[in-house]
């Protein structure tokens, strides 16, 4: 192997400064904070805007005040469980299992199936004990929860993609896992805001965004994470 080639490679590397591990950690912390701020910001703005219209709606005869007031234990239980699942989703999506090639497809696939199922089952099973949460709300099909989920999750999804920019294998699958993790984080916010546990509503407003975000993550992952010649 020629010394010329070695010199060329070393010179090319020297000409392109690259961040060290410490610098990457600092950068990732900043990106993580930006993701949290964007998610919380989107949630607060949306909740404030929607609460006014919600109050107007509550003035009508269709929805009684009783439907909105969830017991604290129910909120704590559903949100607490959702936080646990979201943390697991983040660990799956952002952790690499000690290998530079990331987690195996099997891990990512099982995570992709179990995370939405766990969130749905937890929400419904907690709410079963509180009958009023499960009643049908025809005026709340779930489109607002869908919008809130997507709004809250956009920032975190982009941040996760920025944090895991180098994925030499399975970029689409890794991107999908990141989308799912962002959706699971958004689920926590939506769960804080939305008192409805009617299953069709939950499927449309809470579960569907998980899959939409996973799909968006897969598409973005293929583009952003995939290796390209420079």
């Amino acid at each position, binding site marked *: 192997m020629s010394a010329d080639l070695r010199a060329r*490679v*070393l010179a090319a590397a020297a000409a392109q400064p690259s961040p*060290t*591990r410490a610098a990457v950690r600092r950068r990732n912390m900043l990106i993580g904070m930006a993701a949290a701020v964007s998610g919380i910001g989107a949630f607060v703005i949306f909740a404030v805007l929607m609460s006014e219209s919600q109050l107007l709606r509550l003035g009508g005869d269709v929805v009684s005040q009783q439907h909105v007031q969830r017991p604290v234990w129910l909120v704590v239980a559903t949100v607490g469980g959702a936080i646990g699942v979201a943390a697991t989703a983040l660990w799956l999506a952002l952790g690499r299992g000690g*290998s*530079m*090639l990331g987690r195996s497809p099997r891990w990512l696939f099982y995570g992709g199936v179990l995370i939405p199922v766990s969130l749905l089952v937890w929400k419904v099973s907690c709410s079963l004990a509180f009958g009023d949460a499960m009643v049908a709300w025809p005026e709340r099909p779930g489109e607002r929860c869908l919008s809130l989920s997507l709004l809250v999750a956009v920032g975190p999804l982009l941040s996760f993609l920025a944090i895991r*920019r*180098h994925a030499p294998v399975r970029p689409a699958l890794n991107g999908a896992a990141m989308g799912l993790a962002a959706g699971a984080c958004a689920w926590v916010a939506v769960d804080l805001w939305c008192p409805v546990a009617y299953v069709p509503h939950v499927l449309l407003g809470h579960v569907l965004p998980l899959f939409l975000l996973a799909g968006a993550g897969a598409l973005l992952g293929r583009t952003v994470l995939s*290796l390209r010649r420079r």
Partner: protein
Amino acid sequence: MTQSRISASGGGDGPHVDGADAAMERYARGDEAAFGELYDAIAPRLLGFLRKATRDAFAAEDLMQQTLLHMHRARGSFIPGAPVLPWAFAIARRLMTDHARRRRVELRLFSEAAADDDRIAYEPTATTAAADDVLHARRLEAQLRQRLEALPELQRTAYRLLQQEGLSLKSAADVLGTSVTAVKLRAHRAYVALRAVLREAGEPS
């Protein structure tokens, strides 16, 4: 402690792999000199792998360089104690796939363009030129094509974007994700190689 963990993680891949893991770990922490050691430890294996896979020495060298530069750019995300060689091979393989895909597209475009050129060139020459002139032109074309295929992919692409696709230097640089100077240099090397073929054939270059 980190050193011993890395050595232990090397498994049965031999002393070079342990050396590569240790060098990569030091490089991730900011020891700039460790990149040379990393190169010495993994470049021969990478190059052997790429040469066998591509059967093209120039492309293999280019892909090996790209692989190492990718590792250089991603050094900050290197996981302490992670084995470096599978990562390097995964990057090389991914880049090779990308390279092969581009090459297939180029070959298809080139063969379509050549078929068009054949039609255009054949119709008038069949009636006006002598048969041996046609034969000579065809041989020359084949030699030029062969030489172009033998060029490093970056030179070939730069040449094709400028000469066959008619892109400006700036556009070609954008397409290749490099500087205008680099595109000029690559295209110039391609021109030199193709002119050499013309000179050998006794044609004005």
